């Protein structure tokens, strides 16, 4: 803004001069010359080299401790938690040591709450630096590039593990855990632990166990009159909840364009809502469907158990018929969504679905379930049902190049959740590890997961987070909590759960996918054109990053058996 006033002053205060052609050319030549000289100076100043992190940790004694964790419904696990006894005890006092934690405001909430106790116990200081979501990665990369160690602990999306851990910017936590122990490692849900691993080592610990799920208005779908009408119209009973995307489509069609809850007279309500806005997280909605139509479940091998690249050729899998079919289905579903769907980022979606009750079906992470009970403006309290992602009635078998006409369902960890790690360049690693361990401890993290301390951004990532009583105590209806937790536990405990993309360049791959999805949404590209364009652009990205390196990291990140 001030620039205006400076420019204004310049024009109003300077003496009017004649500016002839020679003067203009002279000015331009001067600027170009100056820049050229500067360019030479810049060229000679090479950036700091980024190298791998060396470590010299040693491991010795081992101890066994047990913990019993009660999960909802029928699942009761007795955990044998293998931990370690410290060879050299981790100090418990860090007088005046300042540990800097960096994340986005939403995820800083638990840190703000727990730091008081940690500071009182250890005499250390927690400094918190918040950035908007879009700035998290750039700021971290700037710091890594300079090896500055500004941030001791980083809380970030698990999908960035490729850039962070793969780039050698994170501390390998395994030696620390072996030396100093860690609270209830076996309590971590398998899927969330996999996200935090890189090359078989823990370079981070889970902080938020994210996965998409299907929400549905059970008060509406269980209405006998609506069920009767649905059966008449579609020839089969109303699926509560829908098990396939084809059923989702029928339900969305049935409930679209009329007032099915009669809460506010004259309202038009819709069949389905999801995140579809360009530049937010719409690509994950599409990937929810691709996971069902294009991926055969199983242990990751060349042809099964993963969804992005062929691990032998590193060519993208997103122009396979299964992926195109998934996009076609998503575009069809869009027709039964609120008219403003393309403006729905996660905030708009949650407002519309939880506070506006605009649709029967919704797809989102676990946050909607928390908002249902915790947001005072919720109009769906106790009315939502929860289900894993619907499957598909057929799946593309790319090994044989044909459709397999059978029910296919994959659990998929969209986004990959949030993880917490220590920077390789931190100068206060002991204090950072102490704080990280404290924050991740079941005693603290259960408060985050249940929203007890007023933070809603952390979904369950430990078995112990499924303690039903704790959820009921903070205001959840018992039935709802049981169902909600069972769905999340089912998804995140599934050993064949599909892991999200986490190789370097993930954001670039996803932006390309998001851009063509956005074009398909407004009809600028057909599904075939869009997925073909995604294929071509992903190929360019892979080439630019080094095909062989990307292939190796892809295999490493998903532990694929080729």
């Amino acid at each position, binding site marked *: 803004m001030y620039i*205006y006033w400076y*420019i*204004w002053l310049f*024009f109003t205060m300077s003496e*009017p001069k*004649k*500016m002839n052609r020679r003067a203009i050319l002279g000015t*331009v030549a001067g*600027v170009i010359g*100056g*820049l*050229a*000289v*500067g*360019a*030479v*100076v*810049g*060229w000679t*100043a*090479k*950036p700091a*080299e*980024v190298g791998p992190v060396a470590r010299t940790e040693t491991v010795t004694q081992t101890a066994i401790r047990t913990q019993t964790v009660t999960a909802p419904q029928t699942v009761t696990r007795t955990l044998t938690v293998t931990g370690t006894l410290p060879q050299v005890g981790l100090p418990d006092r860090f007088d005046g040591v300042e540990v800097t934690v960096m994340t986005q405001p939403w995820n800083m909430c638990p840190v703000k709450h727990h730091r008081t106790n940690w500071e009182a116990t250890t005499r250390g200081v927690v400094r918190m630096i918040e950035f908007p979501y*879009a*700035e998290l990665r*750039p700021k971290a*990369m700037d710091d890594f*590039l300079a090896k500055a160690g500004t941030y001791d602990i980083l809380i970030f999306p698990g999908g960035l593990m490729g*850039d962070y851990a*793969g*780039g*050698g910017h994170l501390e390998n936590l395994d030696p620390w855990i072996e030396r100093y122990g860690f609270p209830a490692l076996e309590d971590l849900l398998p899927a969330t632990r996999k996200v935090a691993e890189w090359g078989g080592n823990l370079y981070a610990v889970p902080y938020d166990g994210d996965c998409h799920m299907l929400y549905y208005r059970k008060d509406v779908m269980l209405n006998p009159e609506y069920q009767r009408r649905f059966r008449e119209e579609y020839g089969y009973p109303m699926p509560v909840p829908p098990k396939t995307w084809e059923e989702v489509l029928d339900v969305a069609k049935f409930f679209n364009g009329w007032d099915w809850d009669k809460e506010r007279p004259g309202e038009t309500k819709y069949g389905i809502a999801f995140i579809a*806005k*360009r530049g937010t997280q719409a690509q994950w909605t599409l990937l929810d469907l691709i996971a069902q139509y294009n991926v055969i479940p199983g242990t990751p091998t060349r042809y099964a158990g993963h969804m992005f690249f062929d691990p032998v050729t590193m060519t993208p899998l997103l122009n396979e018929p299964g992926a195109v079919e998934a996009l076609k289905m998503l575009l069809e579903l869009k027709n039964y969504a*609120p*008219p*403003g*769907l*393309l*403006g729905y980022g996660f905030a*708009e979606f949650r*407002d*519309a679905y939880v*506070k*506006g009750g*605009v649709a029967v079906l919704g797809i989102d992470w676990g946050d909607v379930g928390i908002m249902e009970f915790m947001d005072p403006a919720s109009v769906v309290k106790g009315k939502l049902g929860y289900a894993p992602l619907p499957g598909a009635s057929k799946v593309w078998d790319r090994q044989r190049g044909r459709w397999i006409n059978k029910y296919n369902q994959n659990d998929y960890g969209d986004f990959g959740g949030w993880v917490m790690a220590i920077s390789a360049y931190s100068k206060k690693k002991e204090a950072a590890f102490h704080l990280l361990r404290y924050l991740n401890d079941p005693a603290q993290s259960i408060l985050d997961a249940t929203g007890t301390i007023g933070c809603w951004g952390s979904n369950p990532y430990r078995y112990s987070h499924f303690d039903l009583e704790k959820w009921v105590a903070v205001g959840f209806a018992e039935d709802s909590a049981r169902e909600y937790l069972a769905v999340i536990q089912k998804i995140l405990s599934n050993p064949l759960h599909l892991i999200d993309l986490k190789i*370097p*360049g993930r*954001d*670039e791959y996803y*932006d390309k996918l998001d*851009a063509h999805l*956005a*074009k398909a949404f*407004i009809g600028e590209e057909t599904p075939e054109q869009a997925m073909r364009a995604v294929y071509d652009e992903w190929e360019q*990205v892979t080439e*630019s*990053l*080094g095909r062989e390196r990307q292939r190796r990291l892809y295999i490493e990140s998903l532990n694929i058996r080729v």
Partner: protein
Amino acid sequence: MTSPIKWLFLLPAIIYLVALTMFPLAWSLSLAFMDWKLTKASDPQFVGLDNFIRLFTKDARFWSALSFTAFYVTVAAAIELTLGLILAVILASGIKGGRILRVIYIIPLAVPPIGAAFMWRMMLQEDVGIVNAILTFFGIERIRWFTDPWTARIGLIMIDVWQWTPFIFLALLAAIRALPVEPLEAAKVDGASEFKVLQKIIIPLLKPVIVTLVLIRCIDAFKLFDLVYGVTGGGPGLSTESASFYIYLVGRSYFDLGYASAASYIMLIIMMALSITLLWRLRRTW
């Protein structure tokens, strides 16, 4: 002032200029000739004009973003100038309550652009936003603000007009107040209508100020980023992706620093050409 001591006094300013302006500028220019992608975890490599060639021959998205930016700049600046002039003339005529109106008009200017972006994003939300709710109340059909490419473009321009018209208005109001009164009084004595006075006397006298304001607004609007970032994210499709926003994605999301730098310099050259042309014309009018 021929004493060497003057250089001592100038030294802080020179150091500041070199460290914070010239070096980054030169460094970024050198990057434009390199292949340096941070996600590749390799050192920068000199690639000559490759980045520029790729930009001119293979990157339709950049040119699409640039053409949207040009459209945005042209339309927004034209509307802001027209509205600003009308408001300035009305308020300069000494209407009742002018002072209060002047304060009200400049409030949008005090709102940070990113704040304005998020505020309008919520207000224009199609299903639950207040603007469509008001339209529906009066029986008018909801507007698809951000789901149709053209309404999304117009929506962004509308927000820009809301925020920056006050700047034009304020500057023109000050300029009108500073005009010599003699020609205006002479015209009135000769029986000229208010419109003729405006058309034949006020606007010609304001011409240098108008050109300056247009220049400032064009340069600023050309850097369009906050609104795209906060309101549309570049969508629907890629219809509202501005050149700055695209360069931001390339540089700060893809971490393709060399290519982003090359694109930035193309933008800089376009802006310099625009500025020099306008300045040249401006100087001729003085």
